[in-house]
């Protein structure tokens, strides 16, 4: 995609429809951006934040209560049984991991592709990634029968001389998910350093304005905290040079990481020999699905956020539209994958495989399958229409559908494949219990608590990067080289 800076004098010569919307509307000065974003962190939180936080916190506590019950009682409190030994826990794990993919994808892949529109959304998306991975990480942990021994999955030397078994995709998962979490955290943190410095400096400037002792103390504590985490950043160009290089390298590492993580998650299924799981298309299909669901979740979070914090000029409709296009593209890939699975099941001539797919669509879980198809394949096709890509409330609704559909996709894969496999004698049926359902609901509480804390205490938009893509950031602007920075195909 190419982007053209919209200079007034150029505009007159360019057909209107070819003119790109600027990434920050209304030609705002740099200081305005700082004020706008850092202001959220410094200001008092609105009432809705407190309400939302309280609710989220309670929901999160419910989640922990159910997890406590699970650990004290046994995995049997879930609806699992013998053909279906993995249920909601694994569905939720894959679901959250999938959501966690948009963040790093937006940050890393779009960075490598020089998609400058990423700057307004990458911070939030990365935060979402980290929180989603936290939510995801809970499930494989608690789903094991003896959670207190889960550390046996780590390759630690021990007096038993026994090691983990590295042929297991679950162990790959351990490495992939923990690496993904760590690298995402590093990547996110690295991006935060200059912005934390911004807040540190603003606190420094505002220290004099503090009147009461309490305010002064808070200012001081915050200065220390933001100071420590900003690592003494002074915006030096010699630092920027290494910083940008490191950021580029991290992006370069994160991109294959993103692709590998969901590929490895898909190996949990693809490496098995279960009809419906044993499918070579899974890695790309899962990655596309992850991107799809991740962007869905980014939109779900960002549309209310930009309205609530009045960030429409930074997170513009153009940003939303571009994300809708990604959703449409990945949704189509996912739809293709669904079709391809069926085709191969038929063409491959394995009756077990064919039955597994027939059973998905027309077996006892037909409803899950058709919810998945409607939400994942049909609903994103609405984005062919410009109106639907540019109407935030509508996008919001579709993004919710995408989230639902992607959850059901994992449900369909995990449960319908397991419940009827090779021997009809062991066929069964799985339905979740209260504990299954409310634990999953509870993770949304955890997610929202983390997210609300994030918007409360950290700049939710990458200030320095947004500044970097404004027209006035172009050092050649006054020398007439307007197009050099923003324009051109990279």
């Amino acid at each position: 995609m190419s982007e053209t800076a919209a200079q007034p004098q150029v505009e007159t010569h360019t057909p209107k429809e070819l003119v790109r919307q600027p990434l920050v509307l209304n030609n705002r000065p740099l200081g305005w951006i700082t004020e706008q974003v850092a202001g959220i962190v410094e200001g008092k939180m609105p009432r809705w934040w407190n309400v939302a936080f309280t609710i989220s916190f309670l929901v999160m506590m419910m989640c922990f209560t159910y997890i406590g019950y699970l650990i004290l009682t046994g995995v049997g409190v879930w609806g699992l049984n013998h053909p279906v030994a993995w249920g909601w826990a694994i569905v939720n794990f894959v679901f959250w991991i999938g959501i966690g993919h948009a963040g790093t994808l937006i940050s890393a892949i779009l960075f490598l592709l020089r998609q400058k529109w990423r700057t307004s959304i990458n911070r939030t998306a990365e935060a979402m990634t980290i929180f989603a991975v936290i939510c995801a990480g809970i499930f494989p942990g608690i789903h094991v029968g003896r959670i207190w021994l889960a550390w046996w999955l780590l390759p630690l030397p021990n007096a038993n001389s026994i090691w983990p078994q590295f042929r297991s995709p679950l162990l790959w998962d351990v490495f992939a998910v923990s690496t993904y979490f760590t690298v995402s955290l590093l990547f996110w943190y690295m991006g935060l350093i200059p912005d934390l410095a911004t807040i540190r400096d603003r606190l420094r400037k505002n220290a004099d304005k503090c009147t009461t002792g309490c305010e002064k103390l808070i200012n001081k504590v915050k200065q220390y905290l933001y100071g420590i985490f900003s690592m003494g950043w002074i915006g030096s160009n010699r630092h920027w040079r290494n910083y940008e290089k490191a950021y580029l390298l991290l992006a370069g590492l994160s991109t294959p990481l993103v692709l590998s993580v969901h590929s490895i998650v898909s190996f949990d299924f693809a490496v098995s020999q279960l009809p419906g799981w044993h499918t070579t298309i899974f890695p790309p299909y899962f990655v596309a699905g992850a991107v799809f669901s991740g962007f869905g979740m980014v939109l779900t979070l960002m549309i209310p956020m930009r309205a609530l914090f009045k960030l429409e000029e930074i997170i513009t409709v153009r940003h939303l539209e571009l994300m809708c296009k990604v959703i449409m593209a990945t949704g189509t890939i996912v739809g293709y994958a669904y079709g391809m699975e069926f085709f191969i099941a038929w063409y491959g001539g394995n009756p077990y495989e064919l039955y597994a797919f027939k059973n998905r669509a027309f077996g006892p879980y037909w409803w899950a399958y058709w919810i998945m198809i409607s939400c994942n394949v049909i609903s994103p096709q609405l984005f062919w229409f410009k109106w639907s890509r540019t109407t935030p409330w509508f996008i919001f609704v579709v993004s919710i559908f995408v989230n639902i559909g992607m959850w059901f996709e994992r449900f369909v894969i995990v449960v319908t494949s397991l419940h009827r496999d090779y021997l009809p004698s062991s066929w069964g049926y799985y339905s979740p219990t209260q504990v299954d359902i409310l634990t999953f609901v509870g993770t949304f509480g955890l997610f929202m608590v983390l997210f609300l804390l994030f918007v409360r205490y950290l700049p939710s938009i990458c200030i320095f990067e947004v500044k970097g893509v404004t027209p006035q950031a172009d050092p050649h602007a006054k020398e007439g080289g307007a197009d050099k920075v923003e324009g051109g195909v990279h």
Partner: protein
Amino acid sequence: MKTPSKTGQIGNAAEAQYWRSIGESVGELEHPDWSDREFPEGASELSEDFSRRDFLKLMGASAGLAGAGMLGVGCRRPEEHIVPFGNEHSSGQEYVHGEPMYFATAMPTRMGAIPLVAESNEGRPTKVSGNPDCPATKGSTDGFAYASVLSLYDPDRARRYTKIGKEMSKSDTVLELKTLAGKEGRTAFLMPSANSPSRDRLIGKIKKRLGENADFYVHEAIDFCVHQRAATQAFGQSVVPNWKFAKADVVLSLDCDFLGNEEDSGLYASDFAKTRKLAKATDTMSRLYSVEALLTQTGANADHRLRANALKIGAVAVYLSAKLGMKTSDASEMLIKGLTDDQKQWLDACIEDLKGHKGKGLVVAGYRQPESVHVLVHQINGVLGNNGKTVEFLPASANDFKNLKDLSSDLGKFERVVNLGCNPVYDGGSDIDSKAIGDKTEFRLINFAQDESHSDSGINAPLAHYLESWGDARTSDGTIVSVQPLIAPLFDAMTELEVLAVFADPEDPQSAHTVVKDTFSGNDAAWQHYLHQGYQEGSALDPIPVEELELSQELPDIPYRQVPEGSLEVVFTRDYSVDDGRFANNGWCQEVPDPINKITWDNVMSISRKTASERKLNNGEMVRLELGDYEVEAPVWIQPGMADNTVSLPLGYGRTGKLRIANFKYEKRPLINNEFFGAEDVPVGGFNAYKVRTSGESNITTGIKLMSLGRTYPLSSTQEHWSMEGRPIVREATLEGFRKSEKKRAEELDKEGYSEKHFFPDNMGLGSHARNEGKIYQHPYKERPSLKSDMHQWGMSIDLNTCNGCNACVIACQSENNIPIVGKEQVAKGREMHWLRIDRYYTGRNHDPKASAGRIKDQGQNGDDEQHTEEWIDDPQVVNMPMACVHCESAPCESVCPVNATVHDSEGLNIMAYNRCVGTRYCSNNCAWKVRRFNYFDYNKRPLEKLYESPLTKPALFLDWLTDREKPSKREDEWDLLELARNPQVSVRMRGVMEKCDYCSSRIQSAKITKKVKAGSGGDVMLRDADLKTACQSACSADAITFGNLLDKESAVVSDKNNPRTYETLDFLDNGARTTYLAKVRNPNPKMPDAYTEPFSSGEYHPQEPHGGHDDNHAGQGKAEGGH
């Protein structure tokens, strides 16, 4: 992970409430920390030469050493000397602490006994198996025998002597009993049926002493004595028939479930199986015809099966006799008219076959049929020349006991009743005034503390289990077997013989031991020998030569009874799982799936599809069944293969006494439910069919009314789907097909046509065949040969032709491997723990699974919802397949385990190291056979109703938990008893751990150790067939399971693997299963109207073209013409 006690343990008298600990002197043993032991342990008893004192100290020392007991359970040794069974395990050895001992004993049954070898660990009987040396049965058993061990430790067993509700001691009770025996007035003895020489002798003595003042009544709800009565009637002298299925080439069963719920079914299964084993194409096999109303195990294994109402069986017999040229009467013409033309044609062809096998055929009638039908069958066998050949007649003592109905009418004549273990209130029948009998009962031996007949009037005395009793019995061939106790009665209970001995001689009653010894009447050495081997040599009765028998030629009077138009007939039947209710409080029996309908924890009223649709009844629907003045509410089960207009009511359920397994109740759980909100009530325990059953010859009756109650009853079935879906899982051929050329046979049996052909595995799954060729990597056995043992490679072969689905292996496995029961609700969720299950599939003529595959089949509460409306289930063929871990060489479960908890050992075993398992359950998902079982809860620790409990659901538990973290999950008081049934050789798995069949790894290890200890520094350490049997293998009367060392060319398993019928399930997955199956072969008679050229499963199967695609339906012959 905890194991059952390995160290012997001394009891603490202060805490052992149910029985005295071993010597009161050690009772005060200190009680230090025992937190890491899971449950108390029994101390041992000894063989004779071991000094009691030394033993006590030994036990004490080990107790102190190990840290002493949590809850003392000292099992007293019996006072009389018992003699260990002589086999290689312990032959001639003294008691060695920690090593199991084996004793020969026998489980008495109604008409005989099953000779057993019982294993005792530290004084606790933990496992039985058939006594292979006993010529009467040669080791055959049934599932009930295996389950009986658990009944010994039943926490609901009676444990107190009471008089009018007041507790007293055993010695006082004996005094009371002596007084009773000396009292004036007539005494009626109400006894269960038994075939015991000692009992007969005592009865004789009592009759002699009391004369008219004593009369004996025998009550059994299921009356197997009909065989003897009918034979006696037919031959005019007291004889009992003894079927010799091993000699029969053609068998016709008239409602006779000799493979299932006839007594001695284990023996019959064993004999019958001998005629069904095919090692090569030229071998012959027998043919089984079955005419029956219910789908029984026998019918399920029949080559030809005719559905007929149970009432019509008499007509069938009459028709056959007419066809054989026996004289008929007008009445018989009437009967014959009741048969349809189809039925007549079927019978015509069948009788031709029987005629062609004179002297080699056998017609048998089942216990449900009236005496007259049995008499006619004897006559038919007479005409066919079978008497004396395939059925022998043994002399029998006249069985002239009166029954409960007689007692009820004679009651006025008696001053008192002495009840020796009957429960007439429960199973007496609806027309018996059991209460009146109960009121007159002055002494009763009670099995359960509070069963239905419980009353505080008179004296109650706990009845001893056979594993704690002295006794004897005659098996069906007359062999006298000894019943010797392995453990002193847990609750100081009494045996029947002890009570009778008091009545025989109130002045100086003999002990049961003396009674039995006196009956034996041999010298001490002979007695020792008798106890040692468990049977009296040469005591088998000689059959009466057929020439000496005079067969009555008079046509028996078979009543003309028809199912009235628009009505239904009712068939009461012995339940496959709980017998007549005697095993209802046995968790293993409750949880073992019914061999036919696979339902656990409940009985169901089975009806046919057609009857159900006529009456608009759904599967699981509750109906009220009215029969005369009586009624019962029962769930409907649409059973494939049921005769139309027949209703079956299995007996033995619906217990109302304080039997906490049979009468199990789930606590309401406010927080956690399967349904999202709202507590679900899960009723357990079935319905009591005795409520509508009258006494006497009342197994079949008519005149019922059914009324739907409009609600559905939740049933827990272990197999919800009936069809094999056209998959080549159980492979079958007709005998003719099997005899075709090898190539043809391969085509017929190798169903996974699109995969590499290895129907005839070139070398039996030894990991050395072509499996590795053309692959990018080598099997590690090849890559590093040191990882593969060159001495032992284990393998198993299961013969689907002889397996009849009897479940004995399932219970034996449960007993051997400490497999917990999980309760009805958990079974409903699909969490049963049986390592070995028996899959049962129905296949239908002209059934095309493809036609219905992919149709929306909603999941009902009781399984897949639409299968029971499909027509093909009316006359299905049935296949059974025992399924446990098949020990794949390239095991898919192993490669997905992240912690190396399930791996291969060098001998080809797929091992579960429980203590390494973290419980990801991935292995289960990746197992194509779904044979892995996960401990979703602490099934071994928690009572069934408390599985979902935690401090978070019951805050009071939180305080307990703070003080004692084990407490919330501890069993309560007497439930600990059940833990004594555990096998100390196998770990007890905790929650969160996966488990599965390990080929009885503990037995393999024990056998290897025994062999190595014997070998010393020598090298004779390779195990042979004789050294080792798996639990299921030793349980299989039909000899369907062979297990052994594949590297031992002389082992049975190697020859089975070379059997042309061998195939591997799901072989296209190329996992290399070590358990292979021998394909089932059916032997249809081509002249029969329902003949088939290939088994129905072949018709369902649609061969798949290698390249898949469009028109792949042209191969398989006899494929379905359109679906339904």
